[in-house]
């Protein structure tokens, strides 16, 4: 991309931006966001340190990702016939878990999200 286009946003309404979520208007060279989470549903209202919940105890957080090898022997030429990206109205409730919302130019983006959800019973 030799030239970047101008990003023009009118009205954006965003309810929540959490857990490595990104919202950007304009140009981005490189984005890298990661998010790890354990969603535990258990009996009782108290979550204590002695519950012993660790990321390392679950294989999901150590598993290898299956990403494609990034080799791009492509020579790209971009010709802009219009110099503005224009947005009128956007309404989003939430952006979460290494997700991205961008208006504009983005060169590289890398996102990784891992969520383990389980229930734990105090007596069976």
């Amino acid at each position, binding site marked *: *991309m030799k030239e*970047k*286009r101008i*990003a023009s946003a009118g009205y954006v309404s965003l309810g929540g931006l959490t857990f490595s*979520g990104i919202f950007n208007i304009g140009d981005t060279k490189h984005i890298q966001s990661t998010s790890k989470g354990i969603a535990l549903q258990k009996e009782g209202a108290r979550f204590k340190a002695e519950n012993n919940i660790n990321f390392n105890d*679950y294989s*999901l957080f150590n*598993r290898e*990702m*299956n*990403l*494609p090898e*990034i080799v*791009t*022997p*492509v*020579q*790209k*030429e*971009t*010709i*802009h*016939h*219009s110099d503005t*990206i*224009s*947005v*009128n*109205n*956007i309404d*989003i*409730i*939430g*952006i*979460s*878990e*290494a*997700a*991205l*919302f*961008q*208006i*504009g*130019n*983005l*060169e*590289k*983006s*890398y*996102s*990784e*999200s*891992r*969520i*383990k*959800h*389980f*229930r734990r*019973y105090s007596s*069976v």
Partner: protein
Amino acid sequence: MNRKMKMEVHNWDLNVGNVEITTVTASSVFLIGDNDEFALSSFFDTPPEAAALGSIVPLASSS
């Protein structure tokens, strides 16, 4: 000789009117614009309801 694929991109008008989204989550992307490269990964593990031991809400009590 190192041969490369040549790609020519023509960007014409990009105008967005009205967008309504509930959530963008777990390594997802919502982009209005130009991009070169994406690498997105998401792991999500949740128990199937059938594997849950007992019911979450007790429906009746014998005692």
